[in-house]
């Protein structure tokens, strides 16, 4: 075991000496997470352009919309119309001076709503309507209370208290579509982050193949084999170094997405186990390429090509849930699909280690097979002599 650790240690130290690796190991995953975040965690519920002179009504309206995660811009009525027409805003609201005055004096409120063309603007329109009616109701309530002799201040605070203790209704949407059911309870973000994390970890691990080729070229690998160590130990040492980096990256991405975007991966123990085994497969594949290919360029081409194809097949780009059944069987030739399934079960159905045992076993077998195959090709690659 000791030679394995010694070799893994020296590989990690070499990695650490090359500054550019900090970028690949630390910065690139962060960028990836931000990209995933931008793609999937678009929390904004749409854009509303509001027109109308400075007034309490306008202020309240803007505040209420923003509280609903709606992006709000304020502009002149002309600009608002243009924005909606050009698709720069999804809905336009024009607050007339009369309405502003009526709000202050508790008269009737009238707004002009301009619906946009985007497919989801009806939803936004609905949201805007409910905000407006909430404002109308509030102003009516305020009027009723002051009419009964309450001071305006007391009335306002009483209403605010009432709003605090109110509970908003929870809506449950029931899907009839099968794939929609698989997604249920998941943010878009969770699904996207899962696939892309697998893709990224695999591709960056494969890029490590060229490091092994350099070691072979340096003659250090042959020299290592003249020490009292077996080819299996040498391969395992190299693999362990790669594996440590891949695991680190996977865990790092998972933590970042969880912390920065609140992604929910499910129970940490089983997730870690899946990531460990998936990283082992990635490391094994990388080293296999490193012992078979003879040049850096072949290795990186092969690495990236294989990394992308496997990811595309295995749910790294399009969620597996959307695959047809034939394609799904094909997908399960890739380690990605097995890891994806396991992660989906852990996240979606709260599965524990025992529930995802088949997936874990498949990944473990893949990792062991790659280790054996790699040992054999490594021996072959150094059996050309010095």
């Amino acid at each position, binding site marked *: 075991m000791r030679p394995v650790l010694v070799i893994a240690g*020296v590989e990690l130290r070499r990695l650490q*000496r090359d500054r550019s690796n900090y970028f690949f190991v630390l910065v690139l995953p962060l960028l990836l997470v931000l990209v995933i975040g931008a793609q999937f965690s678009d929390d904004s519920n749409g854009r509303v352009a509001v027109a109308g002179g400075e007034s309490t009504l306008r202020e309240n309206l803007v505040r209420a919309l923003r509280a609903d995660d709606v992006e709000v811009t304020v502009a002149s009525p002309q600009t608002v119309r243009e924005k909606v027409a050009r698709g720069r805003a999804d809905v336009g609201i024009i607050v007339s001076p009369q309405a502003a005055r009526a709000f202050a004096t508790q008269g009737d409120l009238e707004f002009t709503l301009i619906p946009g063309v985007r497919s989801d603007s009806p939803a936004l329109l609905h949201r805007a309507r409910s905000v407006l009616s909430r404002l109308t109701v509030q102003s009516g309530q305020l009027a009723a209370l002051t009419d009964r002799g309450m001071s305006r201040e007391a009335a306002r605070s009483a209403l605010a208290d009432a709003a605090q203790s109110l509970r908003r209704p929870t809506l449950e949407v029931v899907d009839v579509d099968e794939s929609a059911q698989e997604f249920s309870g998941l943010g878009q973000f969770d699904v996207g982050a899962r696939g892309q994390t697998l893709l990224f970890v695999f591709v960056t691990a494969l890029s490590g193949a060229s490091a092994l080729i350099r070691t072979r070229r*340096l003659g250090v690998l*042959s020299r*290592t084999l003249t020490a009292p160590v077996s080819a299996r130990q040498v391969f395992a040492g190299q693999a362990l170094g790669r594996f440590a980096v891949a695991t680190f990256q996977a865990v790092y991405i998972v933590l970042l997405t969880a912390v920065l975007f609140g992604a929910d991966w499910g129970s940490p123990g089983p997730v870690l186990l899946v990531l460990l085994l998936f990283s082992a497969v990635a490391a094994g594949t990388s080293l296999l390429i490193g012992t078979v290919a003879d040049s850096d360029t072949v290795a990186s081409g092969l690495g990236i090509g294989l990394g992308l194809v496997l990811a595309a097949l295995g749910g790294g780009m399009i969620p597996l849930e959307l695959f047809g059944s034939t394609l799904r069987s094909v997908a399960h030739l890739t380690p990605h699909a097995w890891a994806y399934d396991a992660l989906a079960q852990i996240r979606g159905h709260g599965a524990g280690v025992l529930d995802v045992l088949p997936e874990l076993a498949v990944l473990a077998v893949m990792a062991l097979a790659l280790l054996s195959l790699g040992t054999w090709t490594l021996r072959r690659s150094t*059996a050309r002599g010095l």
Partner: protein
Amino acid sequence: MSDGQRSGEDDPARASEGAVLLVEGLVRRFGDLTAVDGVGLRIEAGQTYGLLGPNGAGKTTTISMIAGLLPADAGTISVLGRPMGPREVEVKHHIGLVPQDLAIYPELTARENLAFFGRLQGMRGRQLIERIDEVLDLIALSDRADDATKDYSGGMKRRLNIAVGLIHRPALLILDEPTVGVDPQSRNAILRSVEALSGEGMAVLYTTHYMEEAARLCDRIGIIDSGRIRAEGTRSELITLIGGVDTIRLTGAGPVEESAEALRLLEAVDKVGVEGRCLTLTVHDAPTTVAQVVTTAARTGLALDEVEIVRPDLESVFLHLTGKALRD
């Protein structure tokens, strides 16, 4: 093959007795090419064996098999009496290999490189640290020990390449052309450390195509060409083997032709050639004949300006055996 077996006298244990390395009938083919063709050699503790041969002679291939990197097609290798091959792990403890091409990590320092290979050999702790310092001292790299080796000069890298092979005090040190492309100063340092190591009792297998190095370092020399050992022995044995003849060159003023006549009559002299004021004599053993030659020449009235003795070297041995020059 038959030679090796006969010298073993039916008892392999006796044959390897005292030998650190014993190689018999080693063969390795690459496709149609037989790169190593029945090589046999024996090295004892404290002995330095030189494998002298031109490019492509099969030196590195032989070494690769001895170090267990390359399987042999035929023949046997034993180190300290134990069989050696690609699947043997423990025996490798006794072998230190210095490959022809640099094999060190450029990103790491000399100390880290030495520590890595030392640990692979099972060394650790204080023992390892002390040995690293010792080896750094031997190759005169102590002051640069903590710099990344990619910033070293060519000679420094070569010296470190050697140090890595020594770190675990192997019984057998194999050096494959360690001085190629090295400045004279580093080269001298390398040769001196090899001499020191063999003085400490290490068995050394040294390949080179520089005959001066072989002549200076090696107790025994094997001349290898096209995968075969053409001749083997000490330097003077090899020279005698080719019926080594010495040459004495006399330059002087006076009766050149008469002197030549008188010299031809001497028993020790084989041939005399005349060319202007210069006489070229072929003799068996110049050091013992030269006095007689000079006296005879003086007696015939030749006033000598210059006496030059030319003895055959390994280069001429090589030329004689293979019909080609050592260097191309």
